[in-house]
């Protein structure tokens, strides 16, 4: 079994090319472990290569460490063909990991000139870009255009001129073919195979060592795990505090229903409402709608924060308390004090909430009557 994980950018000498050519390029990986077992899947990749085997490389704990396809195909255009013989690797989450040429093989350009080191580096960077504009182009649109103002697109979108920056010079079709192979159906197949093997250990590895994309992949599926250990829960909470909004959102939204009922997770969400940025506050508040019941400490925490809230957040918080049927008198009285505030929007929202709660408490009724009188005079 080859040890290929955890290495990045290693140069080898290609005898066929007669020059130092880096023939193996890998992105950093989540696991430094080596695959000890390979499982073969016969797949329909929906691409025109001759390969239909996907290799799943697993570690000792049956956690996927990488996936591999051995590609042998021709890239043809205008009647000229070149052989493509290489291995392509995917991360367990479906993202691009790297490629490797068999010993003695090398990539070449339209004029049969071998790839140079900078060409391989560019190819590696292009393949790592899942949002490349190559996604939006058909094979036959890849005729490089330069300098002709008539070709400048009138829209704020990719132009043929832009595409030139996203292909290896002299190897447009090889680049295009490989990019679509890397980001085509194989991605989904890899992701689906890994999802079937997802357990807490695998998920924890992704959360601890993965890229934000890997972490989000793990968080989006964490709800399906049978159980969350304390370490896993802490890791998710830590990610929920991330400044990366996508990552924080995935973490805040990842708690399964059974955990949302607990005081520990509800406390974390209240903390996010208190200390997080505005988007995190909104997301955490939205999560608190999911449990059947709010813990008393959660309600107490929220009621402390409500006077500092404005606009949409205030409306959401009051809607939450109403939906969860929070009607204990001290809490409602505390909210009724907000009727005296000088922001008519905020006090109006509080009044609407109190109307719906319909408390018979004399103190609250008095405050509501006073508020109504004040509004009528305005």
């Amino acid at each position: 079994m080859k040890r290929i994980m955890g290495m990045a950018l290693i140069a080898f000498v290609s005898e066929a090319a007669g020059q130092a050519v880096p023939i193996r390029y890998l992105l950093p990986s989540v696991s430094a472990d080596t695959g000890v077992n390979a499982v073969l899947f016969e797949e329909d990749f929906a691409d025109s290569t001759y390969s239909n085997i996907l290799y799943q490389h697993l570690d000792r704990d049956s956690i996927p460490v990488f996936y591999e396809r051995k590609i042998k195909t021709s890239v043809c255009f205008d009647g000229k063909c070149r052989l493509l013989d290489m291995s392509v690797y995917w991360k367990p989450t479906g993202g691009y990991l790297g490629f490797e040429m068999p010993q003695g093989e090398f990539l070449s350009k339209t004029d049969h000139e071998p790839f140079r080191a900078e060409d391989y580096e560019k190819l590696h960077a292009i393949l790592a870009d899942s949002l490349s504009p190559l996604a939006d182009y058909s094979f036959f649109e890849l005729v490089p255009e330069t300098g002709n103002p008539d070709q400048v697109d009138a829209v704020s979108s990719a132009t043929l001129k832009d595409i030139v920056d996203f292909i290896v010079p002299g190897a447009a079709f090889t680049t295009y073919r490989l990019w679509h192979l890397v980001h085509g159906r194989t991605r989904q197949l890899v992701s689906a195979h890994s999802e079937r093997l997802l357990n807490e250990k695998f998920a924890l590895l992704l959360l601890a060592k993965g890229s934000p994309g890997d972490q989000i992949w793990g968080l989006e599926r964490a709800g399906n795990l049978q159980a969350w250990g304390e370490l896993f829960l802490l890791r998710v909470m830590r990610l929920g505090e991330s400044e990366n909004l996508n990552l924080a959102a995935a973490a805040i939204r990842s708690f399964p229903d059974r955990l949302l009922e607990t005081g520990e997770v509800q406390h974390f969400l209240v903390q996010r409402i208190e200390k997080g940025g505005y988007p995190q506050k909104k997301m955490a508040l939205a999560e608190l709608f999911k449990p059947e019941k709010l813990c008393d400490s959660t309600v107490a925490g929220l009621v402390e924060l409500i006077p500092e809230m404005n606009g949409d957040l205030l409306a959401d918080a009051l809607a939450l308390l109403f939906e969860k049927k929070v009607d204990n008198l001290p809490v409602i009285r505390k909210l009724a004090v907000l009727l005296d505030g000088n922001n008519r929007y905020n006090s109006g929202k509080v009044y609407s909430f109190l109307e719906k709660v319909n408390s018979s408490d004399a103190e609250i009724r008095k405050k509501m009557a006073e508020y109504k009188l004040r509004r009528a005079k305005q």
Partner: protein
Amino acid sequence: MTEKIKRRSALAALGSISFGVPTILKGERLSVPYRVDKKTIKTEILVIGGGTAGVVAAIQAGRAGRKTVLVENGSQLGGVTTTGGVNFPGIFFAWGKQVIGGIGWELVQEAVAMNDDPLPNVSVPHGRQHWRHQVRVNGQLYALLAEEKVLDAGVEVRYYETPVSIKPTKNGWQVTTIGKGTETVIETNQLIDCTGNAFATAMAGFPVLREADTQPGTLQFRLSGYDLDTLDFKMIQSRYEEEVRKGNLVKKEFLNVAGLLRNYGDNVQHIAGADSTTSETHTSANLRGRASLMRMLRFLRTLPGLEKTRLQDVQNEIAVRETFRIDGQYLITHEDYVTGKVYDDAVSYSYYPIDLHDDKGVIPRHLVEGVVPTIPLRALVPRGSRNFLVAGRCLSSDRLANSALRVQASCMGMGQAAAAAAALACASGKTPLEVPHADLKNLLETHGAIVPVKNT
């Protein structure tokens, strides 16, 4: 039919013997002669223009607890985002972080969620493809959400009205609007011009600026009925050039026919000098945009593979990029923009490449990594004015800076900042520029907005 003829005969007979007294048939009621409904209303903040910036401004003003009126000359809110059909109001993120949030982002996020649309993965830099971070929204849904939130904020919405006079008063402004059967005098403490064209600013007597050549407008439409993979683009381009040479098509209107087809018509047309400032200029721009679309549609349907091209959708109005700008207390220059200058009174970020559309197309010039331009409150205040703000593309800026500042997310940020400043000014009896920046920052942040911070 027989009944109708009988009725007409009866009316004719009656008419010959009546003296101006209408005959009332069964089921009809006599209505009193129509009179224009004249009234005077008082408010604290008046927002003129319910477009991209105006919606956010009105919601912010209402949520800040101020009595607010929103005047819109059309029938729905959202402006360029909705009526104009430019339903990708980015960009809210820069260099992996959110830079524009608040009410604009709230609207966008809810529209996305209610339509099950995807949000872009903004943790991946967009490189030279800034549109990777654009967020697509359902324009009609956005208009409905905007209206719902404006009403929830307690704002009085006045559709189909436009100002005809704006005069200063001791404590603010007196604005007269006319609409369908209405003539309304609105007395306000603070006025926010969100027309995008500095229309209210000019009417109030403050100077406005305009380039000799403005950026073209675009009528948004959507084509369908063809398969891109089967098209012969070389032939199509050649036939297109031929029609341009013959004078049947106008090159500047569609610079790249392949791009038009690839984008299915989305954001590809250029109508020179499109200006939405007045009824006449707006009518002209709409007519030219529609005629241009019809010429192109007829041409496309003559081409092999495109015979069944259909017009899937077309917006009611052309979207306009550039008209007038105010002469503000501060003018944001191109240099300010590309260096990401942070002002002491910065109230909002803006993030977009310099994006000047002209008759050769557009090649965006991207900002250097890490740069996020900012907007000072002074750029939203016409020089010499009191209790008067603008928000939107007509802010005080030079042409190149404006080509980037004009985009919708930036306009949303400006709308929220202008309204927050107006609300605090109202509450404290000051003018917006006299409001302490710390108070403004605090109010904006508690409403979710992101206020630039100066690195010390």
